[in-house]
């Protein structure tokens, strides 16, 4: 190994290990019931972000100086069964896609970490927030730098879990918890699609390394080493995974629900980073998209539909955070269209610009409302609001329908409930009642003691 490669290896390892160490510190202190002070948590977080960001900047500078475009960091096999060609390779890559996305993640996580230190000062769940934050940060770094689909999946899962738990951060209220559950359910289904895609890719190429999948060149020049029909199959599954993570149509229902969490988490996760992770996945695997025209058309269509839905929905919301969330969806839809059209650099620049702007808007949202209120009080009247001129061209009936479509959030949640959740529950409730009948008949008595379980036995009067 040359000194330059050794330097890359040390810096790259620091980038990856820093968030893992933060997660280990915060996780262990929670596990052994020895909570850290607010100051310690904040310092550890700042240090972790810095120890990820600075080595990443150093790697970028060295790459620019030496004109190296691709730096793989091999940390060996986490698990391997050589006889079966099964391996879980810990390989990370610094290239023109991962470095900007990594730096974006570090900068935004750092900003939001600093903001949260004051925003959640003396809140009971301060430590819990930063634990989930550490998991999210770790997931983002792993996803950004992953060079194998398995590593990407690990990061993807961590982002998913931390997001769901953060939505349910105010866990003494029912609504945030319900919304957290909803987010998690959609994530799990899209993760299932991701996992099936990963296994299918493994079978096609014999390895999960993106390098093996892209037979020639590094991002964005690679071409897929699979056939068009294979690309269509894998790409469709990945599209479902990306749609779930980026709240694209028809999974957009979770995005406004995610705004139940504290403002910093809404800003960083659902406004800036999490919603772009699906687009990042499509960018990372863009050679697969290019291998199939049908797939490209699917990607563009999905982007257009999501952007239009997001634009309509964002205009009729009565909550600033939800309105911003749908505005994010519009932009993510456009980014997906750009990816479908093969405009990879434009999509990457769009992601970075949009994520930064949206973080700023969401962090500013609570104080902005207060400022508007002060302004209106001083003016003695409401601020003038311009109606969208485009609406005037539509017939009144269409205008009403658009309003209802936007207000009901595209009927997406209603449709998912009606056509998927309710039939599922109905079928398995029926199975449950059949089981009950059989067990009752065989036992010759009411067989379920669980029916007598009190709804709230923990109430003061009955607690042991």
């Amino acid at each position, binding site marked *: 190994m040359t000194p330059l490669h050794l330097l890359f290896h040390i810096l790259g390892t620091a980038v990856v290990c820093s968030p893992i160490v933060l997660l280990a510190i915060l996780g262990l202190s929670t596990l052994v019931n020895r909570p850290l002070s607010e100051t310690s948590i904040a310092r550890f977080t700042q240090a972790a972000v810095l120890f990820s960001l600075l080595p990443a900047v150093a790697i970028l500078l060295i790459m620019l100086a030496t004109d190296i475009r691709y730096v793989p960091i091999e940390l060996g096999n986490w*698990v391997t069964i050589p006889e*079966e060609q*099964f391996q879980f390779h810990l390989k990370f890559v610094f290239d023109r896609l991962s470095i900007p996305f990594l730096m974006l993640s570090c900068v935004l996580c750092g900003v939001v970490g600093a903001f949260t230190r004051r925003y959640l000062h003396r809140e009971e769940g301060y430590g819990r927030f930063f634990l989930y934050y550490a998991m999210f940060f770790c997931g983002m770094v792993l996803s950004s730098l992953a060079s194998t689909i398995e590593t990407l999946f690990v990061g993807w899962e961590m982002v998913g879990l931390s997001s769901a738990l953060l939505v349910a951060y105010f866990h003494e209220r029912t609504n945030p*918890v319900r919304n957290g559950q909803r987010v998690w359910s959609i994530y799990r289904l899209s993760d299932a699609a991701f*996992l099936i895609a990963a296994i299918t890719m493994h*079978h096609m190429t014999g390895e999960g390394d993106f390098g093996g999948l892209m037979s020639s060149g590094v991002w964005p020049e690679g071409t897929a080493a699979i056939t068009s029909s294979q690309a269509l199959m894998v790409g469709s599954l990945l599209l479902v995974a990306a749609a779930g993570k980026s709240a694209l149509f028809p999974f957009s229902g979770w995005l406004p629900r995610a705004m139940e969490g504290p403002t910093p988490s809404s800003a960083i996760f659902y406004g800036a980073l999490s919603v772009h992770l699906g687009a990042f996945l499509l960018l990372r695997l863009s050679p697969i998209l290019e291998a199939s025209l049908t797939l490209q058309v699917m990607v563009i269509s999905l982007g257009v539909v999501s952007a239009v839905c997001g634009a309509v929905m964002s205009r009729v919301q009565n909550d600033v955070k939800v309105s911003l969330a749908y505005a994010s969806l519009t932009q993510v839809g456009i980014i997906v269209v750009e990816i479908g059209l093969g405009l990879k650099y434009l999509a990457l620049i769009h992601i970075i610009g949009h994520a930064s702007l949206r973080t700023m808007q969401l962090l500013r949202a609570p104080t902005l409302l207060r400022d508007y209120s002060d302004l209106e009080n001083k003016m003695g009247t409401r601020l003038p609001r311009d109606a969208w001129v485009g609406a005037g061209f539509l017939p009144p009936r269409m205008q009403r329908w658009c309003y209802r479509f936007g207000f009901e959030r595209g009927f997406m949640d209603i449709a998912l409930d009606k056509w998927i959740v309710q039939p599922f529950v109905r079928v*398995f409730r029926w199975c449950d009642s059949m089981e009950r009948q059989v067990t009752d008949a065989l036992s*010759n008595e009411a067989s379920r003691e669980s029916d007598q379980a009190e709804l709230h036995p*923990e109430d003061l009067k009955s607690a042991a």
Partner: protein
Amino acid sequence: MPEFHFPWIEVSILVPLFGAVWIHVLGNRDNILRHAIAICSVTLALTIGELIDFVLIGTFEAHDHWPFIDWMFDRDVFVVDELSAFQLPLAALIFLVTVMSTLRTKAPRFSLKLALVSETLVLATFSCRSSWTLIVLLIAATIPPYLELRNRQRCTRLYVLHMAVFAALLLVGYGWLSMTEMNSTAVLIPGALLTAAALFRSGVFPFHLWMTDLFEKATFGTAILFSTPLVGAYAVMRLVLPIAPSWALQSIAVLSLVTAVYAGSMALIQREARRMFCFLFLSQSSLVLAGLELVTPIGLTGALCLWLSVGLSLTGFGITLRCIEARISRVALADYHGLYHQMPMLAGFFLLTGLAAIGFPATVGFVGMELLIEGAVDIYPLVGTMVVIAAALCGITVLSAYFRIFTGHPTRTQVPMHARPAERIAVLLLTVLILGGGLVPQPGVASRYHAAKELTRLRLTTADATTESRESSQQKTSNRAAVAVATSSVLP
């Protein structure tokens, strides 16, 4: 066959048995729980000793050095091999943490004597290869839960019916097998009977009703101890795997996969925590069974890894639920309880074990699940994806249960419900294993792969021997026919 340096197997089987007698002699003393914990700890230490000795010997199988009950059993009855070497400490650990997490106030309901007898039977079962002793032990292990149901004056019909069918299938199947030549196709019928028995014991759909009934009527501890060591899967490994053809096993794997999805879906709609746990367990144990029935080295490795993971994580998940039940009685999932402030440590452990059970990254189940999916998709490209669907459904169930039990409502009571020291130790012990196995999975995977390869090799050797003897018998028949034809052509 290589020998251990100490009779680990027999001593670890006898310690809980004598412990049960000791507990009986002590009667209803206050410190009876401590004695039970000590006995289970000694048993665990012995099984760990056996594992270390086994690894040091570096062989596929080994038996005791000074077998002092060889007047009763054949010398080779209790043998530990690469499959059971890890299952024995796991089973002993399951018993230890379950006994440790028993509240003193609940000790009279949960029979420690029967738990120790069950431990003896489970350890003896896992130390036993295919023989009549194994059949007897498998049947005997069904008696302690029956006695508890009787003592609690609950209806035993459903349990007795299923276990009677299980016992009958085992006896008839193994009896038939003993009288059948291993090289004939007639072995398929006793093989099918033994498979049916194993499916009954494992609670594969539609033979799972006894398990939900047991979780309803027995104490939670007994139900956990009877189900989580996965004795049914062990029966498949010992009785069915060596004789059944691959196509038959792989067909049964589809049934196990269907059970995994069905149970995962049922877990999602349950309105009470024990039933939810039962279906979650059924879903995960069916995945283990499916992996074993794939009979490919990678599928088998995945199943063996998942077996350990399910044993650890679902025992942890179960004992956490049991700790909550011990404080507030049965937990309804129809509404939110908001117990996080009362028991933050148990909340964290509940989430951790639940995530480990579904194979979340960095927990012990992750690599096993990956291997299992890989193995399932290898054999059934489309049906194999059911593993992923089952895992997704279980994942939704776990977080839903977490939210319903620990969040969603302001604190309803000021009564503290923190974990006791013994519970904390049990929880931390399992946490270390779950995270340790998840972060450093290679040694475990390598050892399970080696075991899987050896088991597959032994199976192939048996199959080759069967094929050879079939071919030679066919050859003999055709020679006889040729001689007969030649004789008839020569004779006028």
